[in-house]
């Protein structure tokens, strides 16, 4: 039976090979994936693929949630409550999906930082960086659109405030806001639009960009820790001499990190499931603040005066923000020195350090603003600008 079965399977494989030529393709793919990575590549180079693994998990939990979720303002909140309490392990699936957003954003930020530190964005891998930056923005958009779907107080008012920030963008803002919201406020049309964006358009876009991103990574290889001039002169393969092959050596490290990250995600999801909160109503509850990855922007917008030369100050703020995100996406074209070794890129690292410091400080101020903190027996309350009262 076994032999017969195996030979039947073999015959099927042969038949398919004659039609698809998969054996040769597989051999070529394995040969390609087995090319060595540069010798310095280690644990820090596992973040991108870990994010990929969690993205797959996110898609799986997302599909499981979509089986029960109903995208109308009347039913949305009740359907999520149903998932929380009646669906078998529904609370765990929903919690893992919510925590997945946090993990994914954190991993992508860390991945971008690692690439920047080791000069991976430089010639000839500019396009890889641009695609990666777009993937980060899409992830943030997925997080923002997904947050509205439970139609709870916090999610609803988060979307209201977020859409207003879109609307104040000069020129395209009002139109973009209307297109996203499907009306003047956040209503049934907004929910269906966010739903379509969250489960259809953004994932499809992300899949396409991700495919291009990964194809470029395979085509160009991991950047060696050498200047672009050296890479041009000696060739990528020569600089990878002495490195481990990607498959199977490096991929084992990636698998180990991905497994631990996934387990950490499930643990967080099990121990701290997010509360659903009350269904959205007419009144805004106190304590509306964005998720941690938007806190810096939220806080940054507060410091602008309401008008500058008769123009709403937020317009300037948003323009500056758009300029900054564009600069982030176009980083390879701004940071043009040929050097990749961090020690020889003091200026670029100093500038990046300043940005990181500002971002961290704004995030901290944002989390403290209109909040309370007990530390060392003292109790502080903070005003909207994050100053102690």
């Amino acid at each position: 039976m076994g032999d017969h079965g195996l030979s039947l399977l073999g015959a099927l494989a042969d038949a398919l090979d004659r039609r698809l030529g998969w054996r040769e393709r597989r051999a070529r793919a394995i040969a390609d994936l087995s090319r060595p990575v540069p010798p310095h590549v280690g644990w820090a180079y596992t973040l991108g693929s870990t994010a990929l693994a969690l993205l797959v998990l996110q898609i799986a939990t997302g599909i499981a949630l979509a089986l029960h979720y109903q995208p109308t303002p009347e039913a949305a909140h009740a359907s999520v409550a149903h998932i929380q309490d009646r669906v078998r392990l529904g609370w765990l699936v929903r919690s893992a999906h919510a925590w997945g957003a946090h993990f994914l954003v954190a991993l992508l930020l860390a991945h971008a930082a690692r690439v920047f530190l080791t000069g991976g964005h430089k010639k000839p891998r500019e396009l890889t960086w641009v695609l990666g930056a777009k993937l980060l923005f899409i992830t943030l958009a997925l997080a923002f659109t997904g947050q509205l779907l439970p139609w709870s107080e916090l999610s609803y008012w988060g979307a209201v405030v977020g859409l207003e920030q879109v609307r104040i963008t000069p020129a395209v803002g009002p139109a973009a806001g209307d297109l996203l919201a499907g009306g003047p406020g956040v209503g049934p049309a907004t929910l269906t639009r966010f739903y379509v964006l969250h489960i259809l358009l953004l994932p499809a876009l992300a899949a396409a960009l991700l495919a291009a991103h990964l194809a470029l990574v395979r085509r160009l290889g991991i950047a060696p820790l050498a200047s672009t001039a050296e890479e041009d002169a000696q060739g990528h393969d020569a600089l990878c001499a002495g490195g481990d092959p990607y498959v199977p050596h490096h991929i084992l490290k990636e698998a180990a990190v991905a497994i631990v990250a996934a387990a950490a995600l499930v643990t967080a999801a099990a121990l701290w499931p997010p509360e659903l909160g009350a269904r959205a109503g007419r009144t805004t509850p106190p304590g509306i603040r964005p998720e941690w990855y938007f806190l810096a922007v939220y806080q940054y917008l507060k410091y602008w005066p309401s008008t500058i030369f008769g123009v709403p100050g937020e317009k300037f703020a948003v323009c500056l923000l758009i300029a900054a995100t564009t600069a982030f996406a176009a980083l390879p074209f701004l940071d043009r020195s040929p050097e990749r070794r961090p020690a020889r890129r003091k200026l670029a690292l100093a500038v990046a350090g300043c940005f990181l410091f500002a971002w961290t400080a704004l995030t901290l101020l944002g989390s403290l603003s209109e909040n309370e903190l007990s530390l060392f027996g003292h109790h502080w309350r903070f005003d909207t600008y994050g100053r102690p009262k």
Partner: protein
Amino acid sequence: MPEPFTNRRDFLNLALGAWAAAAAGGVAGVLGASALPVHEPPQTVKVQKSDLKDGIALAELGGSPVAVLVTPAGPVAFSLSCTHARCTVRWDPAARGFACPCHGGKFDAEGRVLAGPPPAPLRRLDLKDAGDAWEITG
């Protein structure tokens, strides 16, 4: 042809494969469990006695059509889903029976199959008299 698992490397590959299969199975198990439908506890609906028309009062219980039929032996509650393919059967006051519009199934006033493909009588539901209304549970 795969070699027999004689050395340690092959054992390691097997163990890793088994581990991966178990992990994937665990994730699939959780997601699959969540995909299963939730069994709702029995629900109750009140049918006003004043809703009676031609000796029958229609209502909806948990999204399915139900009815209270007044027979000489007293009121009886039925699920109106045909036991063949779940189409909703209709009460025919002239014939004093239920008829299914899909495949010609016929039931009498007791819910017994008279004709057609239905394999079982109409499902009876618990009925409680509550003054000017009946409470159907099922």
